[in-house]
């Protein structure tokens, strides 16, 4: 593989990590959704580049799904939900922006420390790809734990799934079944979430997970 191909792949994968960081500090609902759309676009580009480099046409399908479904349909749907539920106020955070970013940097360092030495033998290309993918997964987890609002937790989960797709695309010749299944499961996951959000809307005036948390464990 030529070094320029390496560099472009690394550039795109690291752009995805940067986009994850941008998700972490968004404090407006609409801004958060827009950044997530950008996150999905970057993923589509990274996967398409992998398809070109590996000469694996099925990966173009994965890239197209990311572009159409995650970068377009889901953000539009989320915009609507947010508007209908009137939750476009500030995103409530459990931890401040500064400390969240610091933890995020720590997580990236952790994924480098864990992944690089282990995956060294499987070829330079894959190993760095996995480092970025793990970083995106961990940042997605961080986002899910530091947000209270249900919609931003969902976005955190989808950014986590983006990291998984990046990892799957980077694994050379991984059978199609996985890419499609991942994309498909995201679709199902989203329907589930949609159903939930509407149910929650039916019964409560808030999709704030903390409002749901009144019932914790069992009381008398």
């Amino acid at each position, binding site marked *: 593989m030529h070094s320029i191909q390496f560099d472009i792949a690394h550039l795109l994968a690291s752009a995805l990590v940067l986009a994850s960081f941008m998700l972490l500090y968004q404090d407006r609902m609409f801004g958060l959704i827009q950044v997530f759309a950008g996150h999905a676009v970057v993923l589509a580009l990274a996967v398409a580049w992998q398809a070109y480099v590996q000469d694996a046409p099925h990966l173009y399908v994965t890239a197209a799904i990311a572009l159409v479904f995650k970068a377009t349909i889901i953000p539009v749907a989320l915009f609507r939900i947010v508007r209908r539920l009137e939750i476009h106020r500030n995103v409530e955070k459990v931890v401040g922006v500064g400390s969240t970013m610091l933890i995020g940097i720590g997580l990236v360092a952790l994924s480098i420390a*864990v*992944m690089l*030495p*282990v*995956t060294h*033998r*499987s070829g330079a290309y*894959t190993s760095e790809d*996995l480092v970025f*993918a*793990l970083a995106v*997964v961990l940042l*997605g*987890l961080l986002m*899910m734990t530091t947000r209270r609002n*249900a919609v931003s*937790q969902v976005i955190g*989960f989808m950014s*986590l*799934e983006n990291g*998984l797709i990046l*990892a*799957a695309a980077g*694994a*050379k*010749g*991984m*059978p199609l*079944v*996985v890419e499609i*299944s*991942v994309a*498909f*499961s995201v679709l*199902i*996951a989203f329907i*589930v*979430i949609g*159903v*939930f959000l509407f*149910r*929650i809307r*039916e*019964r*409560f005036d808030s999709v704030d*997970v903390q409002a*749901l*948390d*009144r*019932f914790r*464990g*069992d*009381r*008398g």
Partner: protein
Amino acid sequence: MIDWASIAEPMVLAVPAGSAAILATLPGYRLSSKLNVLASLTTFLAALTLIVHRPPAGTFLLVDDLNVFLIVLNTFVGFTASAFSAGYISHELESGKLTPTYLRFYHAMYQVLMFGMNLALMANNIGLMWVAIELATLTTVLMVGIYRTHEAIEAAWKYFILGSVGIGLALFGTIIVYLAALPVIGEGLDAMAWNVLTTRASAFDPALLNLAFVFLLLGYGTKVGLAPLHAWLPDAHAEGPTPISAVLSGLLLNVALYAVLRFKILLAANEAALAPGPLMVTMGLASLSFAAFMLYRRRDIKRFFAYSSIEHMGIATFAFGMGGPLANFAGLLHMAMHSLTKSSIFYSVGHIAQVKGTQKISQITGLTATHPLLGWSLVAGVAAIAGVPPFGLFMSEFLVLSSTFARQPLLAVPLAFGLLIAFGALIWRLHKLAFGTPGPEEKSGPAPAGYKLVAIFAHLALVFVAGFYLPTSLTAWFQHVAALLG
């Protein structure tokens, strides 16, 4: 002439999938609930034939020594749970908890869940297995939230978020396993097929396998309900319909543990890889001790038995972590016995909650006096789950304990301690539930008809017999699988 042996394997998957589609279109719930039982019975019979005629490993499906017993167990409990559900669910409709539309959805989802679990057990592909477990998870999320109460939605949401994170981590582990297999097996489906992976695992890069196993244990461990990843489990059990609690505890936890075991075999086949034992022993012991103490503070009867499931999955994980023929044998036996016993307890609890109109332990007293048959079925079930001899769980727990004493006496101390604490909690609660002074009469409805309790006693009879007699062929086969597990 149809070759029954060759179509049994696809039938185990096709029957649930096909009947899910039919049930989704049928409006009447009476017919649906009967059809649901019929479909589950057909699936069970098809699974039974797999014991005798084992099809060769295909590209996507595999039936081998390890999974065949789980497939049979899965379809059997799936069948009895559907029979229980048929009697249970009409009451839910009468009491206005569910509408006919939701019941239709419920029956279709039940079969989708069975399809997902059977596929996860039979998949010969680590990616396909992951998809199937994800499918089963999503269906149960929907089922847990079906009552649409405040508590049910929160339980489903919590389950969904934690389950998704777990499943995400498991996928990451799955990808790393593929990367480990890539240089040895080459690109393509073979590098994800269990039968190929298991035979070639000795040549894999051990460092990659280690890394993958950590992700897989955390990921699928969340689904097993191992502490500290168990937070979703009690809520999901308490708020969903009781047939689903029975299926969750009895089957889905087993399916997730099966996934962990499969990957453990890969690590065991590779000498340079880390021993998965200590990790599993630690998580198992943590789950056991944590759940044992938490049992004392439960006030909801379904949540109480959900914690007991965490405890028992902890024991099974501990046994597999110890490894060796005897402990593995005990672990397999424990999985089977727990599955049968816990589902029977949930059947009893379902009827009790309907009769008493509450799930609060404080409002359920003196069952053996007011509803003798139901009360005694609970007494027998709790005695079995607590590990009272001669029930099967006593045997498996005794084997775990004695094999641990022989090899690592220090580990046996916390294990015995946890078992005793849990035993105390179960008996203490049972005393009030079954033998306390009966509450005011107007609070309790009529006892369910005797035939509705057949499934409970069938399960308990199996567990009872297994406590002192296992057919030699079954024992030999359990031992063979135990050797495979390493």
